[in-house]
C-alpha cells in the first residue's frame, strides 16, 4: 500500500495513467486495438500507428518543454518553422520552381541537414528576441508563426514540390528491410539525445534556475540570457527535424499543410505532461508521454469512427478531463474525499 502511494506521488504517474486511460477507451469499440501484426514485412497496428504518427509531436515537445521551462512562455512558431525547413530542404534538393523531381541537385543528407539548420536559425531569431530584447515569448514567436510559413511558400514558388526520389521517403516511412517505421527511430534519437544532455550536463539545472528566478541565477554566475537563447535554438532545431520527417512522410514540401496547428499540440503535450507553463521545474519524460497521449487521442477518434469535423469536439472533451485530473485543486479534492471516507470507514468499524 505504501509502495503504491509512493508510485502515485511520482511526477510521471498521472500523465502515464491518462495515456493508459485513453488507450483503454479503444477497448470498448475495438478489442483488437492492441494487436500488432506484420504485413508485407512491416509492423501494423494501432499502437505502432500512435508511436509513428506521434513522432513529430514528441520531437516538438522536447524543444517546447525547454522553452517553457526557461522563459515561462511558449514558442508558437514551431509549426510554421516545420513548414519552412521542409521547403528550404526541398528547394535545395529540387531547385527553385521545380514542381516534381526524381533527381537531386545535391546530396540528400546535406539538403535535409540544411533544413534542420534553418530551423535552428529560426530558433536563434526567436531566442534573441526573447532573451536580448526581452520581448514576450508569445509575441516574439508570433513573428515567425506568421512569417515562416509564408517564406516557405515563397521558396517553393507557391506550389507543392514533389520529391519522388525513393530514399527521400525512408525517413518518414520505412527503410527497406526494417519493419519499424523510421520516424519512431528519429523520435527515439531526439528524445535520447535530450535525456543524455540533461543527464550529463548541467543544462537542466541551469534552465530550471533561470526559469524559477533569473535574477538570482544571474547573480550566482549563470548567463540567464544565453541559457534562454539556447533553449529557443534547441526548440528551433527540433522543429526543423520534425519538419523534415513530416515532409518525408508525404515526399513533398507542402508549405500550407506541413506542421499546421502542430504548435498547439506541442504546447498541449507540455501541459498534459503536468509541466507548469509558468516555467521553472520541468519533467521531460512527462512531456513526451503527453505528446503520445495527444496522438493516442487522435488515433482513437479515428478508430472510433468519429468524423473528422466532429473530432476536435471530442478531443477537447478528453483534454479537459485529463487537465482536470492533473490539476492540484482536483487532486486535493479527491484526497480530502478519500480521507473522509477512510475516516468514516474506521469510525463505522469502531462502532
Amino acid at each position, binding site marked *: 500500500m505504501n509502495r503504491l502511494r509512493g508510485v502515485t506521488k511520482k511526477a510521471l504517474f498521472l500523465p502515464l495513467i491518462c495515456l493508459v486511460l485513453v488507450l483503454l477507451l479503444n477497448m470498448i469499440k475495438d478489442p483488437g486495438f492492441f494487436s500488432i501484426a506484420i504485413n508485407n514485412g512491416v509492423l501494423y497496428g494501432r499502437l505502432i500507428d500512435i508511436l509513428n504518427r506521434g513522432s513529430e509531436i514528441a520531437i516538438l515537445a522536447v524543444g517546447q518543454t525547454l522553452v517553457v521551462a526557461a522563459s515561462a512562455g511558449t514558442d508558437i512558431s514551431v509549426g510554421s518553422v516545420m513548414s519552412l525547413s521542409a521547403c528550404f530542404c526541398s528547394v535545395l534538393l529540387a531547385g527553385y520552381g521545380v514542381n516534381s523531381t526524381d533527381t537531386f541537385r545535391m546530396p540528400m543528407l546535406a539538403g535535409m541537414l540544411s533544413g534542420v539548420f534553418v530551423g535552428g536559425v529560426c530558433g536563434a531569431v526567436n531566442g534573441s528576441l526573447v532573451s536580448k530584447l526581452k520581448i514576450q515569448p508569445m509575441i516574439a514567436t508570433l513573428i515567425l508563426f506568421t512569417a515562416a510559413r509564408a517564406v516557405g511558400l515563397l521558396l517553393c514558388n507557391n506550389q507543392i514540390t514533389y520529391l519522388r526520389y525513393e530514399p527521400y521517403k525512408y525517413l518518414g516511412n520505412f527503410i527497406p528491410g526494417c519493419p519499424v517505421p523510421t520516424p519512431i527511430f528519429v523520435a527515439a534519437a531526439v528524445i535520447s539525445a535530450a535525456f543524455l544532455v540533461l543527464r*550529463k550536463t*548541467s543544462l537542466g*539545472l541551469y534552465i530550471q534556475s533561470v526559469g524559477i528566478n533569473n*535574477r*538570482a541565477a544571474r547573480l*550566482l*554566475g*549563470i548567463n540567464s540570457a544565453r541559457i534562454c537563447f539556447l533553449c529557443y535554438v534547441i526548440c528551433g532545431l527540433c522543429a526543423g527535424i520534425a519538419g523534415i520527417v513530416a515532409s518525408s512522410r508525404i515526399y513533398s514540401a507542402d508549405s500550407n499543410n506541413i506542421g499546421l496547428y502542430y504548435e498547439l499540440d506541442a504546447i498541449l503535450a507540455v501541459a498534459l505532461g503536468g509541466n507548469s507553463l509558468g516555467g*521553472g521545474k520541468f519533467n521531460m519524460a512527462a512531456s513526451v508521454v503527453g505528446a503520445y497521449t495527444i496522438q493516442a487521442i487522435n488515433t482513437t477518434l479515428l478508430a472510433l469512427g468519429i468524423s473528422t469535423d466532429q473530432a476536435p469536439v471530442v478531443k477537447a472533451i478528453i483534454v479537459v478531463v485529463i487537465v482536470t485530473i492533473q490539476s492540484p485543486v482536483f487532486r486535493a479534492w479527491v484526497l480530502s474525499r478519500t480521507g473522509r471516507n477512510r475516516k468514516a470507514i474506521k469510525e463505522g468499524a469502531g462502532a
Partner: protein
Amino acid sequence: MQSGEKGGSVFQNRPFSQYGEAFCAGPSQLIYTERVKHMEDQILLTMRNVCKAFPGVRALENAQITLRKGEIHALMGENGAGKSTLIKVLTGVYQFDSGEIRIQGINEPVINRSTLEAQKNGIATVYQEINLCPNLSVAENLFIGREPKSRLGLIDWRTMNKRAKKIMDDLDIDVDVTLTLENYSLAVQQMIAIARAVDMDCRILILDEPTSSLDDGEVAKLFKLMLRLKEEGVGIIFITHFLEQVYMVCDRITVLRNGRFVGEYGVGEMPRVKLVAAMLGKDFDDLASIKPEGGAASSEEVVVEAKGLSHKGKIKPFDFIIRKGEVVGVTGLLGSGRSEMVRCIYGADRAQTGTLKMKGRELKAKAPIDSIKAGMGFLPDDRKADGLIGDLSVRENIILAMQAREGIFKTLPPSKQNELADKFIEMLRIKTASRETPVSQLSGGNQQKVILARWLCTHPDFLILDEPTRGIDVGTKTEFQKLILKFASEGMSVVFISSEIEEMLRTCSRMCVMRDGAKVDEIEGDMTQNSVMAAIAGGEAK
C-alpha cells in the same frame, strides 16, 4: 446667530470647520491676520493610536501623525518601520484594526475604504512610480476620468487644454499640455501628478519617496513646487530616505520605528545625529561604546582594490580597498548606496567608470560569473528576489554557484553534490527535512544559511554579505557573526553590511560610510556607536 454674538473670543478654541462662518461675520482685516496666524496651528489631519496587524506581524502599534495646514511634514523611519503601512491605512489601501483618523472639516472619525474615498476626503498620494499614462497628453492626464464634456457628451478638447494650461501656469510648470507625457522628464511627470492631485482639491498631499529617481536639479524644481503648495495651505507628508532633503524643505518630522510612534520634532530642534538615533532606536547620549570583540589581524596583502567605480548615477565614484582576512563594514541609512556599492564591486551592476583590481590583477567583470571566477561571492540583500531559487532543493541551491563556476559540461557527480550538501547542512546547522527539500519550505534564517553555503562551496577569497542577518532570529544572528569572524581568521576577506550598527561594530575592523549615494567617510580604530552614527548622519554633527 449665536456664534455671531459670541464673536472673536470663542473662535480660537473652535475646530477649523466653523471658522468659515466666523470669518464672514468679522471685519476683513481680522480675517486676514487671523488666517495667517492660524495657518500653522490649524490641524488638517490627525491619526491616533493606529494599529494594523498582518498575519504574523504587527505592522503598526499605536502609530500617530499630526499634519497641520501649510506644513511639509517628513515621515521618517528605517525599512519596516511602518511608514508605507501608515500611508496605506490613511489612503484606504489597507483597513486598520483600531485607532482614529480625523480630518479637518469632517466631524466624525474618517475611515477610508478605498483610495477613491480618500480622494473625496481631500487626500492625494503621489508615488515614486508615477501612475499616469505616458502615452496620453499632459492635459488628458490632468483630467482623466473627469474630462470637461461638450453638450453632446463628447470631450471638449479646447476647454480641457485651456484649463490644463492654466493649472500649469499657476504652478509655474513650463510644459506644452498637448504633448504626450512621455516627452517630459520624470521630475516633470511627478509635478504633473502633483498638479493633478492639487487640482482635485486635495488638502493633504502625500509624496512617497518622490525624489529617489530624480537628479539634483529636478529635486530643486520639485521642492519649489512643494513650497508653493505649502504657501497655499496644502499639508504635505513627505517620505524620503535622504536626510539632506528633510532639512531643506520640511517643517516637522515624525519618526516611526517598528510600527511605533517615536516622536514628533520640529526640524530646528532636531540635529541629524539625534534624528538618526531616533530612527535606529538608539538613545544617542546614553550609548556605551562597544569595543569590537573580533576584528582579526589583517595582513598587508590587498585582495580587492577599486578606484573611482560608479554606476549610472546610483552610486557616485568611490574608492575601496580590502586586505586579506579583513572584515569591512559598509554602513549608512537605507537608500544611501550601501547595496549599490557592493553590487558595483561584484559586477552585478556594471561600473561605468573606474577600475577594479582583484589580487593585483585588473578585473573587468561583464557579468557576475567573471567575478565568481576571480574568487568573489555575493550574498544579496533581497534573499527572495535575488538569492533563492525557490522550487529547487537545498542541495541544488547549495551547489549552484560552484556548478556555474565549473561550467555547464562539468556536472558535479551526484555523490559529490550530496557530500557537499550534507557537509554544509551540518556545518551551518541548516534545519531542513532533507537535502532534497525545496528551499522555499525553509525558514528565513535557514534559507540565508543555504545561500551562505552556496558561496562557501566556491571557497571565495572575497565574500560580500549584504544584510545577511535581516529578518532572522537573534540566535542565528550571533551564529552569523561568529562565522564571519571565523572565515576572516581563515584568510577570507569579507564585506559585511547590516542595518544594525552594533552587529557591525562587533565584527568589522573598519567601516565605510555611505550617504546619499556616495562614499563619504571611512572609520577605523576607535569605532563607537556614537562616532558611526555621527558619520552616518553627517552634516552638522560633531
